[in-house]
């Protein structure tokens, strides 16, 4: 009797202790927005008991805060969008490399930092959207061809202040050279049907309304509108299939340099690359999982498969300043 009671007490004590050990907390700074990360956090909390404290803001302020806090930062993990921003985080020394076989096995090297500072988690294609009413897809071929006179007054672009366009330009500079990229961008700007838009959604609305016929957008913006209106008279086109492929960008994460819960953060990051998490992380925003063994959602898959530009995404960070200056010079605001 008393032995059983003792055992019960010990068992209870052990389970309490292990409960304490597991009920950890992770602190996350995220430039990926609340409604896109909360579902993933909730799933992980449900599975492991780990809870999350997080704030969201734009990349630059979050990096400034991490730097200012230095060794005293409460943040364990930085989640952000765009390869250029991840590269910046690495450069500014706010991340610490993670060597993980799980991550290495799940995520292709071209979507990871060469030094292990961060890993991509989801992909988005920045591609051509066209009006099915006014454009024959046979007219379309490459990003560069949108600079041709045939598109004069028919093209819509988003502002050059958005990092997605800066990354696109940076990778074009890498593949085509500065001179050719300048020509292309000049062509684009002179083909504009209307001043550039502040976001891709407004751009797609303009194509639908007939203000322009083609534009360059991130795939998930199209996915969002298509989900709301299946009759949307717009389709995605995958350009440059005979050469470098479609420009893809990533959202990703890294463990901070002074993480207080480094092991927990690594475990969470590893879990994020697994199929279970990849589904939620990518599907909630109609993106492509960075783990290539995980199939995209049915809807994303319905846009068709395509050849991706294999240029290392770090180029987006390395040549970002150069790209902005080029865009300024050709008058892309």
């Amino acid at each position: 009797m008393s032995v059983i009671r003792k055992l019960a007490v010990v068992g209870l004590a052990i389970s309490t202790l292990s409960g304490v050990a597991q009920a950890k907390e992770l602190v996350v700074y995220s430039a990926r927005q609340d409604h896109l990360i909360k579902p993933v956090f909730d799933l992980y909390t449900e599975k492991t008991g780990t809870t999350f404290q997080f704030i969201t803001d734009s990349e630059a302020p979050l990096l400034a805060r991490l730097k200012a806090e230095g060794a005293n930062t409460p943040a364990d993990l930085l989640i952000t969008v765009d390869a250029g921003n991840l590269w910046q985080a690495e450069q500014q020394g706010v991340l610490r490399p993670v060597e993980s076989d799980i991550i290495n096995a799940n995520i292709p090297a071209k979507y990871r930092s060469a030094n292990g500072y961060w890993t991509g988690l989801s992909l988005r294609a920045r591609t051509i959207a066209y009006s099915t009413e006014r454009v024959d897809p046979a007219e379309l071929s490459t990003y560069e061809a949108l600079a041709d006179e045939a598109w004069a007054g028919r093209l819509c672009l988003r502002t050059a202040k958005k990092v997605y366009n800066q990354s696109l330009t940076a990778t074009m500079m890498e593949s085509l050279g500065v001179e050719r990229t300048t020509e292309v961008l000049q062509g684009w700007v002179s083909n504009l049907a209307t001043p550039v838009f502040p976001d891709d959604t407004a751009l797609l609305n303009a194509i639908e309304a007939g203000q322009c016929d083609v534009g360059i957008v991130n795939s998930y913006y199209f996915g969002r509108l298509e989900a709301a209106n299946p009759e949307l008279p717009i389709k995605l086109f995958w350009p440059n299939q005979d050469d470098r492929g479609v420009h893809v960008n990533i959202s990703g994460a890294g463990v901070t340099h002074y993480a207080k819960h480094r092991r927990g953060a690594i475990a969470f990051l590893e879990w994020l690359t697994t199929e279970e998490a990849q589904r939620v992380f990518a599907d909630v925003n109609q993106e492509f999982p960075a783990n290539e063994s995980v199939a995209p959602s049915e809807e994303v898959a319905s846009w068709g498969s395509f050849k991706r530009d294999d240029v290392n995404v770090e180029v987006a960070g390395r040549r970002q300043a150069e790209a902005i200056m080029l865009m300024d010079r050709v008058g892309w605001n």
Partner: protein
Amino acid sequence: MPLPSVVSKPHWRAVAYTGAALVLMPLLVLALSWSSLDISIWRHLLETQMLRLLGNTLVLSVGVVAGVVLLGVSLAWLTSLCEFPGRRWLDWALMLPFAVPAYVLAFVMIGLLDFAGPLQTLLRSWLGNDFRMFSIRSTGGVIFVLVLVFYPYVYMLARGAFLAQGRGLMEAARILGHSPWHAFWRVALPMARPAIGAGAALAVMETLADFGAVSVFNYDTFTTAIYKTWYGFYSLQTATQLASLLLLFVLLALYAERRAQGSRRFPGVDKPRQGALFRLRGARGWLATGYCLLVLAIAFVIPLLQLFYWLLTSDRNDFDDRYWSLIRNTLSLGAIAAFLTVSVALLIVLARRLQPMRRVRSAVALANLGYALPGSVLAVGIMFAFSFADNQLLVPLQGWFGVDEPRPWLLGSLFALLLAYLIRFMAVASGPIDTSLARIRPALPEAAHSLGHSGFSVFWRVYLPLLVPGLLSAGLLVFVDVLKEMPATLLMRPFGWDTLAVRIHSLTAEGDWPRAALPAITLVATGLLPVIILIRRSAQPVSRRTR
């Protein structure tokens, strides 16, 4: 002004310096940014951007000032001195647009009036696909939107000034043979000038600091260049250098305004007006009603209807339990920050009156400059100052006392966020307090003194009651501004303290404007009640409270 001192003069000087130092702290970061120059970015900016940016910024500022003064003064004149159908409720209703954040009105107006919006789509369906009208995404469009959101600053302050002028002066002017128009130009307007100037100054500083609305229009100003330099080139240093140049412009503009205004002060009269001065009858009355209604409709009713339309046509139901905590956070932050900011601003304004020394005055004037800084830059300045204190002082101190896991106390705490609001909105609070203090006739406290009242008693029984309208206006402005505030809240909020503005940012950052309708409507609704209560209270004649 011979305001009797409640405490000794050196104390007041200390108050002024402390207040100024607090607000100057983030500005120090701007000054420190000049330690080195990134030549390649500067050369690029000067060669390709600067001229256009300066031109755009100038055009925008001039346009907004002209618009807010025209709209604000004319509306204030009508509702405070005239009588016409609907005046009673239009009086406070015209403050409602103040509850709409500039970025929200910007995306609503573009949603409504751009090519893909309902108006142009309808017109095209009637007039054929080739129909084209003016583009809302233009210089005129930005000015239009900013005037509609910022005119309440001028309206509120000018209205207070007109109410305090009393009818005696205007009647005297009329008796001396001036026409109503002439009396307005020669008497009422010059007397209200300090208040109008203060309102216009707030509007222009908001305009210069604005990032949200101009980005929706993709209208490049000095401020968008600051952000681009920071977010794109990742050169926070160059961005803060640009921001300090922006402050220099503001300094010049404010100085020019002060010079033009001179040192004239217009104390209020003994008997503030009781009834309307001009009764607008018949067509003229309805014309006045129509004008006020038109402004209210364009700046408030139609945008709200559009937001409701977006809300009702979306099939998502985003309203969950977290919304209540968003509303609670937003309200508590606004209320606490308004109380704190008004208290500190009152102290500083009093200190300046009691110590009219040059150095104190310039310290206070400098302190108000913070308002013209783009929110993020100010927030970063405050953040640096706090994290410096944390890293160099508070964390080592905790370690010294043997605390197990020393953590930063300031950054990420509620206190830090409230202090950030205090610093940011000090200028907003001191404007109305200052103008209402200026209207107190020196004879009043003198009389109180001669009746044997001591310093504190004079403050409590004479000054405070007379200052109540000013304090209320100040509190209201700060409260609503805190509700709408985005950059500092984003950067400095403690975990779990998300506000409605933060939620709007989350959704609009990815271009999901219609889905932001829910938090936007909630935000406006949250700001409405205090706006209505306070404006109605301050509409009571001043005399009722001082009797």
